[in-house]
């Protein structure tokens, strides 16, 4: 069965520092991969997605993610975090059709 692991429940970074959020998945083939962000009290917004091709994908708000097949990982990165990036981040995996499996989320706190 498919599963998604986000090992970090909560991360705190200083404004301007770099950020990496980890995501590992379990699936036999290459799935479709997503990162979503949820600001407090809001729904989920898609940051970026990987379907195929270049393993480094660019998203909105200056985020990028790298797909590493050998590590079954799809980590999210940002070179310089802004206070407005404080939110909860979800990695998700789809094998097609009508399924989307979510990780348990990583809450990001940004300190001035």
């Amino acid at each position, binding site marked *: 069965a498919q599963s998604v692991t986000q090992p970090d429940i909560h991360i705190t970074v200083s404004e301007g520092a770099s950020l990496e959020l980890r995501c590992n998945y379990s699936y036999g083939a290459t799935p479709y991969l997503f990162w979503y962000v949820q600001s407090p009290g*809001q729904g989920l917004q898609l940051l970026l997605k990987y379907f195929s091709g270049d393993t480094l994908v660019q998203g909105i708000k200056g985020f990028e993610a790298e797909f590493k097949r050998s590590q079954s990982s799809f980590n999210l990165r940002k070179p310089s975090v802004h206070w407005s990036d404080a939110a909860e981040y979800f990695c998700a995996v789809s094998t097609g059709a009508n399924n989307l499996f979510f990780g348990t989320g990583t809450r990001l706190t940004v300190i001035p």
Partner: protein
Amino acid sequence: DVKVTQSSRYLVKRTGEKVFLECVQDMDHENMFWYRQDPGLGLRLIYFSYDVKMKEKGDIPEGYSVSREKKERFSLILESASTNQTSMYLCATRTSGTEQFFGPGTRLTVL
């Protein structure tokens, strides 16, 4: 832009009440989904619908039902609300691709 709206942002109901959560989308998407979100558990799929009057159970359908009479509207029904159904409920839509578009969520409290 895809717009997914949910009828209420916050809802408080009593145990045993029948609760309706409504979701409306304006992009003519075939597929619609209901998730619940709980701390430490991420999002879990309750039901989805791939066409009008068609529905499929997700991972946690117990205690819920759904209705899709029109393409743009997908309702989640709690026949007899219980306190363990206190949660954030998120609606999403999808067209032919895999990306899902989410509504703002309804935070339901059952007392």
